[in-house]
């Protein structure tokens, strides 16, 4: 979009824009609510005591563990995600369409279900090895998804120009394709990093202690005390580091195509003798990340049925309340993300960027920290909302806003401002232009956003435990209850429903790759 045009549109609609900006700022402030509890609580600690608490060997151990997981899992997800994306989108891989679907399938398997499967299949695989393996297998789709989408639509023109100027095929890819992947890559890596910081279920099952498992332990022994706030502050700092690293890695280069013209698909690279190794690699990734968990769940399911474990009414009730919470949480997160996403697309500035980064912060906090903060705030200042659906939905919105934000931004980028301006010049009101022009264009990405958040709510554990109204049970809670008593057969039905529910939602994400503009 030409700069002069952008300036014009800002002037013409500054009033509306200001309204949106206020809304976006309000949402950003809302996401910072948990910090309102955590930071003052951590600061209220006696500096000497806080220092001696934080500067002890155990905290060093937690830091080392968290760091080790970072150093292994983030690069591993990038390598697996990029390799898989390149094979599927840029080579003459047999059955590319099927592989595309299969490589997204891990998103339908909650990471703690995957950990449960691995614990029962390979009990010796615990500690760091198990934690790194399961988190890599669970999180690589976060890299695969955006990179595949980008690779599919990247115009081969530059690559061809580079070749014509004498670069080898490999050098051409390195010089022209890789730089363009940077935003998708660092965005995916950031998601992986933030998930690692907040991961609890997998690490608890693998007996690998990080800050988040330590915070859960503090919660277990003292509910909401200063120690957990101190640990959460360390986690917050790590999150800020990840956000800054992402900004640096993104770089300042633009990735959009310049000018118009018809975009072409790249000619698929011929794999030749590499076909078999490529297929083996992809088959291994899918087997480890999807086949092992699904087969294990089915095995325990059959085991339970053979033993005559009662199912039925309870499972249905739990499924319905889970779905209800997922829908409400998804709607809340998407509505909350809209103003910020719109602002980022239309008025990109230092301030809007800050707003965007802000929304990431709370999402890196473990559910338990956000949950405890909401309990504290509600008990002290908003008693009527305590233990109501409203409060838990708010917590979901805070935790999962970035997921909604990411897809909404992609969709809004497709609905160029020129289009709604044209509609308004033809006599439509602002609202009508939005409904008739913008909405149809962004609808797919809204759906994607809803799906991503619903998937997350579906498997949320600790915030749900703290905030859900008394009597509300969810699939994740029920699964965790049985799995932590090591009653795998009793846990299996809940895992099976979680996976079954997630499959259609995950398949929707495939569209994000296929239809990216």
């Amino acid at each position, binding site marked *: 979009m030409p700069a002069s045009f952008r300036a014009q549109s800002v002037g013409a609609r500054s009033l509306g824009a200001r309204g949106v900006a206020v809304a976006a700022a309000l949402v950003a402030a809302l996401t910072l609510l948990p910090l309102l509890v955590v930071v003052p609580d951590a600061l209220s600690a006696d500096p000497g005591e806080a220092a001696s*608490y934080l500067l*002890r*060997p*155990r905290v060093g151990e937690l830091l080392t563990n968290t760091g080790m997981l970072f150093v292994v899992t983030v690069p591993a997800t990038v390598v697996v995600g990029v390799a898989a994306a390149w094979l599927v989108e840029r080579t003459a891989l047999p059955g590319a369409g099927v592989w595309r679907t299969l490589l997204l399938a891990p998103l339908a398997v909650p990471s703690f279900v995957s950990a449960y499967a691995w614990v029962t299949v390979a*009990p010796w695989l615990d500690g760091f090895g198990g934690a790194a393996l399961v988190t890599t297998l669970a999180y690589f789709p976060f890299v695969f998804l955006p990179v595949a989408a980008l690779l599919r639509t990247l115009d081969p023109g530059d690559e061809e120009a580079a070749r014509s100027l004498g670069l080898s095929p490999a050098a051409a890819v390195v010089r022209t394709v890789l730089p363009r992947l940077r935003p998708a890559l660092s965005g995916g890596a950031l998601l992986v990093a933030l998930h690692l910081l907040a991961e609890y279920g997998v690490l*608890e*099952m693998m*007996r690998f202690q990080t800050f988040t498992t*330590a915070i859960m*332990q*503090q*919660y*277990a*022994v*003292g*509910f*909401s*005390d200063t*120690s957990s706030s101190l640990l959460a502050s360390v986690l917050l700092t790590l999150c800020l580091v990840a956000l800054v690293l992402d900004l640096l890695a993104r770089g300042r280069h633009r990735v959009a195509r310049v000018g118009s013209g018809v975009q072409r698909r790249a000619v698929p690279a011929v794999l030749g003798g590499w076909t078999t190794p490529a297929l083996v690699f992809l088959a291994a990734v899918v087997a480890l990340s999807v086949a092992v968990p699904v087969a294990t769940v089915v095995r325990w399911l059959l085991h339970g049925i053979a033993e005559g474990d009662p199912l039925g009414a309870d499972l249905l*009730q739990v*499924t*319905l*309340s889970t*779905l*209800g919470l*997922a*829908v409400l949480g*998804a709607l809340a997160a998407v509505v909350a993300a809209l103003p910020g996403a719109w602002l980022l697309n239309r008025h990109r500035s230092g301030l809007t960027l800050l707003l965007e980064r802000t929304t990431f912060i709370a999402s890196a906090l473990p559910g338990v920290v956000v949950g405890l903060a909401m*309990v*504290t705030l509600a*008990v002290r200042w908003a*008693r009527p909302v*305590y*233990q*109501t*659906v409203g409060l838990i939905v708010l917590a979901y919105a805070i935790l999962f806003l970035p997921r909604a934000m990411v897809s909404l931004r992609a969709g809004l980028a497709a609905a160029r401002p020129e289009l709604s301006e044209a509609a308004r010049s033809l006599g439509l009101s602002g609202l009508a232009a939005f409904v008739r022009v913008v909405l149809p264009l962004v609808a*797919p990405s809204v*759906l994607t956003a*809803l*799906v991503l958040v*619903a998937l997350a709510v579906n498997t949320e554990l600790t915030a749900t*435990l703290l905030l859900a*109204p*008394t*009597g*509300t*049970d969810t699939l994740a809670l029920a699964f965790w*209850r049985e799995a*932590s*008593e*090591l009653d795998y057969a009793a846990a299996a039905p809940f895992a099976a429903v979680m996976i079954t*529910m997630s499959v*259609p*939602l995950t*398949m*929707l994400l495939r*569209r994000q790759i296929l*239809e990216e503009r």
Partner: protein
Amino acid sequence: MPQRRHLGAAAVLTLTLPLALAACGGGGSGEDAFEADPDALQIYSSQHRNVTEAWAQAFTDETGIKTQVREGQDASMGHMIVEEGDASPADVFLTENSPAMTIVERAGLLAPVDQETVAQVGDGMAPSSGQWTAIAARSTVLVYNTDLISEDELPTSIMDLAEPEWAGRWGAAPGGADFQAIVAGMLSDQGEQETQAWLDALADNAEVYQNNIATMQAVNAGEVPVGIMYHYYWYRDQAGDKEGSANTKLHYFGNQDPGAFVSLSAGGVLASSDMADKAQQFLSYVTSSEGQQVLVDSGSMEYAVGTGVESDPALPPLTSLDAPPVDPFTLNSDDVVTMMTDAGIL
């Protein structure tokens, strides 16, 4: 394109169908999943789900009083009630171990338990303060793998596990309230110095597991020869398929050893309850011979504490365990947490 529409429609359906179903089903089942029922007795419970549900169901069947159970863990739920203060939604609190109840008691949030209720439990099963009562009991045991260690090689006291010869050879779940109750008993019996030294040794010596069941399974699988846990997980597994305990036996320390500590599960009524009579009625039911029989029949394998009710016949009698002379009513888990933090366990 048509495929995409199809998928989109499927997603919309997937997302909205449950809401519609939930809306329809809400009236029929009589239990709205999404809000606390103002007419129902609110039971905060960190006891095992199957036991609490069995009590709540039997109580409702008997009296027609509706109940709702909120689940939690011992210490966190105790602290949560304290955080909620006078406006806590809870009417009744049931714990796995008594230190969680003393957290609430020390905050002055409990109402005295009816005298008739206290009279229903055995001697020494309710504190002199009269603020709560025992509802069940469990014993500390050493589980050992019979392939890896013989009976005469077992430690004679739980304190021996701090010796270097046991380094890396025993398992426990120090993050859990059960273990912290055992240490609270040790603290009361052996004093701070001994207990701290034992905890320091634990930090180096013990393999840490998620909970009692994981500890038992690790011993069963031969990861460590012995483990510290409560008795009833073992008896439950033995009564079932023995999948987690077939290679193991239990060793009771006896001799008034800190390792023979018997922990009381506690029940109390919140002073802030807006249905105090029904709450007292519930606690009375739980400790009655009928309620204690519900506990025994639930298969939880915990000890009954009501007079005139026999615990499961598979268990050695509670009176035969020769537990240490610990006053269960002053146990302080918060002190234990501080000491465990100092030892680098938490």
